[in-house]
């Protein structure tokens, strides 16, 4: 096997982690912002 395959594996793994991680981070930010807005709105009403 080509001795440089590890660089290819590392590149594809880093790409998957970077893009997948950013998607998960955006989901977490959306959840946090919605929860924060709902909490403040509920406190004001209550």
């Amino acid at each position, binding site marked *: 096997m*080509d001795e*440089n*395959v590890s*660089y*290819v594996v*590392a*590149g*594809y793994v*880093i*790409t998957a982690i*970077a*893009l997948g991680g*950013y*998607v998960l981070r*955006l*989901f977490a*930010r*959306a959840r946090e*912002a*919605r929860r*924060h*807005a709902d909490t*403040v*709105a509920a406190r*004001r009403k209550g």
Partner: protein
Amino acid sequence: MDVAARGLGKATSRSGERALGVAALVAVVVSATLSLVVAPPDAVQGEVQRLMYVHVPAAWLAYLSFFVVFVSSVAYLKTRRIRWDRIAAASAEIGVLFTALAIVLGALWGKPIWGTWWTWDPRLTTTAMLLLIYFAYLAVRRVVDNPSRRARWAAVIGIVGFVDVPIVHLSVVWWRSLHQQATLLRVGGPEIHGSMLAALLVGVVAFTLVYAYLMTLRLRVGRLEERAVREALSPQVGELEEADA
């Protein structure tokens, strides 16, 4: 501009977002199969050349992201509609991700082929400058509190900063560079084997779909974060109005 805004509105609906997510995932799987299984290894570089199928699309998507920042910044300064500022902010954040990815993937490719992770070559140096420019863009957005001033300053950086994109692209032509010349956009047509070209083009399409999906997600996050700030500020605004009365 209105047609583009309507199209963006459809794409950023929840069903549009889900459809884009599925399309991006399918395209990424097809792209990975073509680039890792179907395309042959390079005659000179061997297996490590397969990094081209992620490195080049990442770099192209960085260009596209910053082009969107540029167009949205011009549109904001012309119309003063905050929607354009939101699009520019979202695209800049994603562009920074793709630029950093292109640099890391280039380093991984450079180590076995050039014998070094990094060198102050014109292409690498101008790309590092591109990353710093858009880091500054994002930093300004965090530092300035006033929304209209923030949008105005960011738009100016988004327009001026875009000047570096053609410099990055043409750096291998203008200066003596270790980095290879353009493979696709060159006089006389592309210079690679058909199956490699197909894998590369599918990679660019897959990354473009990923960019579109990330944009829809990031725009939704932006709207939700603005709503959270509005909700947090609205009682204070009410108190101020009562005090004034």
